[in-house]
Each structure stands twice: as structure tokens, then as C-alpha cells.
């Protein structure tokens, strides 16, 4: 199976471990990934200018269509944006023509033959739960994980068609087969706070702290993410000194690709798990 891998803008510099671990994981299950020179998915300019947003998204779809491959992205914001553009343009021929006219000078066209997948769907549906379960060699024991679903893959459900938007299960299934326990927490499907980081930082932190405390109260050792922005928020912006309520760091975050990677026996170095999370996770690894 061949996909074009859409890393998005933030992975190369700010979160290379997500790119590395996602690639290692997909390669491990024989999924071939093309490395195309995609542009920004459009998400950051959706605020600013709708047409720029559509054009940026459509150009990526056209690039993948030129290679006749679906896109797989590990980032939920990229996923949500590309899905929205796909959905929006499919329903509006006139606007699609207008956007295609802007792509034509460089020989690109998007006709809607390819689609966009998220890392989680590819793992869950294409690789399959059974194959994944069979590959687990170091199941976690006693590790409690709060699954942070992430907004833009889940909602709007009629656009993303990712999972049940009100009662999602894909992410939980994947976490469960690593041996970790996916705890129930009421704020699981809420925002991580990152979209407000560079707009209203106080609000971004407030939202993050409310979520993390909720996860901790549910007994979780880690929050598990499957989105670049969410992980950046929970790992890099989660500094006790800037939080509204001071105190120790609440709980750390781990990427789904790292959690699965460890459980199927990939080396911690290859999937970018740094100390002290590595030690903490090793304590639960059942090897």
C-alpha cells in the first residue's frame, strides 16, 4: 500500500520525533510512503483568508493526485483542513474550477480522485487491529493513558468522517492493544488549547491545565496524542512556571506512534522518546 506522507509544517523543526516515529511505525507494517514536497495545509491561514486556505489545501491534494496516492498525515489539524477542502470543493464545482485555474500554470489539477487519511485510520483500518496486536512484543502493564482525541479529525464529523464524533473509539482501540489502559475522562474530546497559544496565551494555558487536571483525576499517567499541535502544547508549552495555577508539571504527554512503537519493539532512540518519559514508560513496559 502506497501513501504520500504529509508531515505538515511543524514536524520538521518543532516536533521531528513525531515524523520519525510515525514513519518508523508505518514502515514496520510495510506501508510505502512517498515524500512529496507539499506546502502548508492551509490551517494557519484559515483565519486570515478563505481563498488562500482553499488554494493551499487543494494544491496538496493535487500533488498527491498527480502521484495517484492518498495522503496520510499524522497531524489532526492538517487532516481536518485537507478534509474540509476536499469536502467543500467537491460540493462546489465553480469554486473548484476557480482554484484549479490558479493551479494550472504549474501543471496541477485536482479532480477528487484521491482522499486524505489520518495516521490513526491507516493504522486501525489498513494495517488492522489484528496485525497490530500480533506485533506487540512489549505490552505495557499497569500503564494508564488518557486518550486526547483531538478536535480537527473528529469534528465536523460529516466532513472528516474519521470516527463517531460524539463517541469516538479508534484511538482507544489502538491504545488498548498496546496493553495500556485507556481511562475514561470527561474532557477527552475537548481542545488542547494550542489554537489560542499565539492569540490569547492565558486562555490556551487555562484550557490545557483544566484538561490535564481532568486527566490526572481520572488516574492517567500519560496523555496520549495523535496530533502535532496537541503534542507541542502538552509537552513543550506545559511549563509549570507559566501555568495559571502554579505547581508541579501535571502529567506528561506521549505520541501514539511512540506508545505503539515501544510496544512493538522499536528502539526508543529511533522514535525520539527522550528522558525522562523514556524511563517512565520503560517502567511499565512488560519486556
Amino acid at each position: 500500500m502506497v501513501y504520500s506522507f504529509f508531515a505538515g509544517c511543524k514536524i520538521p523543526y518543532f516536533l521531528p520525533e513525531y515524523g520519525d516515529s510515525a514513519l518508523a511505525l508505518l514502515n514496520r507494517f510495510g506501508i510505502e510512503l512517498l515524500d512529496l514536497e507539499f506546502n502548508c495545509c492551509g490551517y494557519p491561514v484559515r483565519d486570515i483568508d478563505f481563498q488562500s486556505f482553499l488554494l493551499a489545501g487543494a494544491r496538496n491534494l493535487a500533488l498527491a493526485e498527480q502521484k495517484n496516492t492518498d495522503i496520510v498525515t499524522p497531524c489532526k489539524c492538517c487532516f481536518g483542513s485537507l478534509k474540509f477542502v476536499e469536502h467543500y470543493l467537491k460540493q462546489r464545482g465553480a469554486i473548484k474550477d476557480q482554484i484549479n485555474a490558479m493551479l494550472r500554470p504549474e501543471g496541477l489539477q485536482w479532480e477528487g480522485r484521491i482522499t486524505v487519511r489520518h495516521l490513526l485510520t491507516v493504522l486501525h483500518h489498513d494495517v488492522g487491529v489484528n496485525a497490530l496486536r500480533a506485533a506487540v512484543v512489549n505490552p505495557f502493564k499497569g500503564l494508564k493513558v488518557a486518550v486526547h482525541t483531538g478536535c480537527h479529525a473528529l469534528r465536523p464529523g460529516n466532513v472528516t468522517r474519521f470516527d463517531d464524533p460524539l463517541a469516538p473509539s479508534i484511538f482507544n482501540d489502538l491504545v488498548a492493544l498496546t496493553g495500556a489502559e485507556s481511562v475514561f475522562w470527561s474532557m477527552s474530546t475537548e481542545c488542547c488549547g494550542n489554537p489560542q497559544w499565539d492569540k490569547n496565551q492565558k486562555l490556551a494555558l487555562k484550557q490545557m491545565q483544566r484538561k490535564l487536571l481532568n486527566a490526572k483525576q481520572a488516574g492517567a499517567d500519560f496523555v496520549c496524542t495523535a496530533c502535532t499541535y496537541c503534542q507541542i502544547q502538552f509537552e513543550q508549552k506545559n511549563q509549570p512556571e507559566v501555568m495559571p495555577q502554579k505547581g508541579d508539571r501535571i502529567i506528561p504527554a506521549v505520541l501514539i506512534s511512540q506508545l505503539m512503537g515501544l510496544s512493538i519493539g522499536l528502539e526508543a532512540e529511533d522514535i525520539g522518546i527522550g528522558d525522562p518519559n523514556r524511563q517512565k514508560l520503560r517502567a511499565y513496559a512488560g519486556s
Partner: protein
Amino acid sequence: MLYSITFNLALAVFILGSIYRVTRWFTVKVGPDAGQFAVRTRVWQAFKSLVSVLFSRKIFRLIGAFFFRIIFQGHIFKKDPLRWLMHFSIFAGILLLVLFHALAGLITANLFSDYYPTANPYLFLRNLFGAMVLLGIVIAGYRRLSSRRLKKLSTSQDVLALALLSILLFSGFLLEAGQIVSEPVFNQMVEDYADPGDSEALEALQSYWAEYYGVVFADPPDLNDPALIKAGEQVHLESCSGCHARPTAAFVSYPISKIIKPVGVWANSIRLDLILWQIHFLCCFAMLAYLPFSKFMHLFTSSVSLMLRSLEEYGALQQASRITRRVISLDACMNCGQCSLHCSVEPIHRALGNPNILPSYKLGSLKKYVQKKPAANFDLADFNEGSFICTACYRCTQVCPAGINLQDLWLASQDELALSGPSAPYQQVRNGIASGRPDPQSGRESAAAADPGPCFLDYSGRPESFAACIQCGTCTNVCPVVADYQQDPGLMGYLDLTPQQIVNAYRLGITNRVLNSKMAWDCFMCFKCQEHCPKKIPVAEMMYELRNRGYKELKEPLKGSEGFIGECRISNIG
């Protein structure tokens, strides 16, 4: 006299210009953290780092970078062999010409005891090096013109650089051609190396040189007498051949001399060779003086930048040196356009038309911005917008052939703009600041400007998108922003509107009054409201519409204020 005055003048300008450029590395401030280091600290830190690198194992990294990236330019070859051929031809051609031709008296003559500019292989090599530069210029010109995107990125500096180089090169080839046909030059050589009094031998030599060396004589010798030419050959072998090869070795200049030949007598009478000599030397001196201020300076600045890159990749730069590094980065750019060709937000430039979205242009703007004084072709609002549309994806830094750390430049300039510049555009909209540009689209080429088209969000203009709202308040109940504000009003302050009230503003046709509401700008865009709405109202997308319109008003404040009174859609609902 004229020669030495102009030369010394050019040399002085070159030296002072170079000193000026290097001094700026330590005085110009780029980034909000630049102010904390005095010039002295930066010079001292740079010196210390230099010494510590030279006497550590990192020196091998530098040597590696020097040979692989600066001399061989292997990193360009790996990306694009044609681009490498272009660049390497110009680079190697110019360098060899400067060292072994321009500085022949200093270098070539001391290295090779048999050196004569007219002897082989020197005659041939000079043409070869010139031809290399010519090849490079042709490829460079072709690339700039044939690629639509590269053509757009090219500036007058790029054209000027190629033009100057071409003039210099052609004046050199023409000069050599002029000397080949020149009778006065021939006479001078006879005076220097033979016996001008022996008129019989001179006539023979003239016939030989007219036949085989392309010299044009006002009084043409008889070329139909093989014996005379034979005799000329004897004289030639005795006096000339030791240090003057046949001009056929000058495989560029000799064919040009054939073109001059028909008008050779006239050319010799006006001493065309001397005129061309003056042009060629004046060109060289002009180039020398212009060098510190031109993109040719990148021969030096890019080399420094590439060396720094090899250290930077291993975190070897101190903080004060990182500031200095930023200024060197600004100096090292030669506007090759690679960053813009690979830029992640390039399609957004297509839609918005602001050239500052593209890194190569934005770098030029940053140069002007750090000077803190008004400059031509610099629009602070455009630079600001471009800076914040950048997603810091790191790609430009990875493709830059000059090893410029663009990522650090963008992160630093974003911070500086947020602190002391116009700040992030959304902050401006939130705070109700209009940047005051009445005609933002003038002089821009943009598909969006040419054809506004139908693809703007317009829920406010389409009542069917919100008319079904029953004001049940579900959107507000699930909204995390509302919950954050409610949980800690002391910390968060007062949220002016709820999502439900935003939709109500649509129903009342007063969306212009909520464009800079806290709710519209504090929204996380998590789409919970929209997902849970029993009437399927696109609540979150309406927030996007409000933001889009907020930005639009930032750019077009005059039109915006009209709209404020003008838009009342109550009639649409009633």
C-alpha cells in the same frame, strides 16, 4: 596616471566597503534579544569562538565544509546538477581569471617561470576560463528567464550582476581580439623582441603574421609569395615563437578577431585595442569598487555563512554570536530564490499577492526593517503580514545553498514584530487597530485581486445558513472557551459574547458589530458547537468568517468603516 588613480580609488572603495560590511555584522541588531549585547561583547565573543574552533576538533568540520561546500559546492550538485554547472562555471571561471589573469604579475609569473600572457597554455586557459564564465552566465540567464517563478523573484540587482559580468567578460574578449588584429601592437612587439631596422626581415615577418596570426596591416604584405612567408617563419622562429603562440589557441577571441578583420585598418587607426584596454580595465575597477555592495560579495559572505552553518548544526554558537550570525545571514543572501521556490506558504502568496510572504523577498525587507529608517519598496504592514503567515516549517533553511539559518531569522523577526513592531495581525484586529492602508492591492499581481470570485466565506449574506437557529444555547453549553472564562473569572476576565449570541448577531444582521468581539477571536475552533448544534448551524465556520472579515478590514479600513453603517440585513430576514 589615470590607471593608477582609478585603480587606487577603486581599491580604496573596495577595502572601505568591505570593512563597512564586516563592521555591520557586529553593530546591526536583529531580533528582540539583540539589544542585550554590546558591540564589544559581540566582537569579543566572535573572536573567542573563532579561536576555540580553530584549536579544537571542530576545525576538521570547517575544513570539510570548506572543500565540499565552498570549493566544490557539492550540496548544490546533489540538488540540481544544472544549477551546479552554472554556479561552478561562474565561480571557478572568475576565481581563476582573477588569480591567474588579473593578478598574473603577482601570482602566475612567480609560479611559472615561462609565463607569458601570449604563450600557451596561458593563452588557451585564459579563454577557457572566460568561456566557463560565459557558459555560466548563459545558463543563469536562461534559468532566470525560462522559469516563470524564478523570473518573478528576480530583482534589478540580479539583472545588474549578470549584465556587469557580461560587459567585463566581453570587453576582455574584444580586447584580445583587438590586439590580435592590431598593427601597432605588432610594431611594439617587433621593437621589443626583434630588429625593426631590418626591413627585409620585417616584411617577411609581416606576411607570416598576417597569414597565421591574423594581424591586419594598413599596407598589406604580399600573401601570395610562399618564399616570403617561409622567410617570415624563420624570423618568427628566431624572435617570436618562444613566447607567442598562434592566436587560434584563444578559441573565443580569435573568431571575434575574424569579425573585426574587415574593418581592421580603421580599428588600428583609431587604436581600438587601447580603447578596449581602457574599457576593460575601467570595468574591472568599477567592479572592484562595486563588489562590497553587490551580490558578488556573496563569494565571501556566503562562504562565511556556510562555515558557520557547519558549526551551528552542532550548537557551537554562543548567544552573542547568534546575533552576529543573523546579520551575516542577511549579508550572505544572493537572491537565488531557492527558498521561495520551495516555500511552504508560496500558494498563499499566490492568493494574497503580498511578496513578503516569500522568504527571499522577506529577507530583503528584513534588511530594510533592521536599519530602522524609511526605505524604498518597504511596506511595514506587508512585511508584518508576511512574517506571521510564515509557518516556520524549516524548509527554506534546509534548501538554502548559502547555509543561511532562515528559521532563526524568521523566529527572531516574528518576536521582534510582536514586541515592538505592528505585532501579529490578529492582535491588531482584536485590539481594533487598523493599519491604515487605503489601497492595499495597488501594484500587485494577484489572482485574487484580478478575480475576487465567489470563494469567500459569506454566511452573513446567506440567511439559510443561520435562519434555522432556535437560540437553544447548546453551542454555548458545550463551548470550552465559555467554560474557561466561567471557571476563573478573576483570572480570565469577562467574555463579552457567547457562541449563541454570535449566531444571534447573524440573525439580527449586525455581524459588523461583533467582528472584534472576544468570542470571535478567543474561539479555539474546536467545532464542538457546530457538531452539537441540533439545527446544523455552521457556528465555528461563522467564527472563521468573522475573523476573515476582521483581517480584511485591517487591510481596507476605509471600506470597512462604510460597511459598518451600510450593512443592515434586517430586511433580508423580515
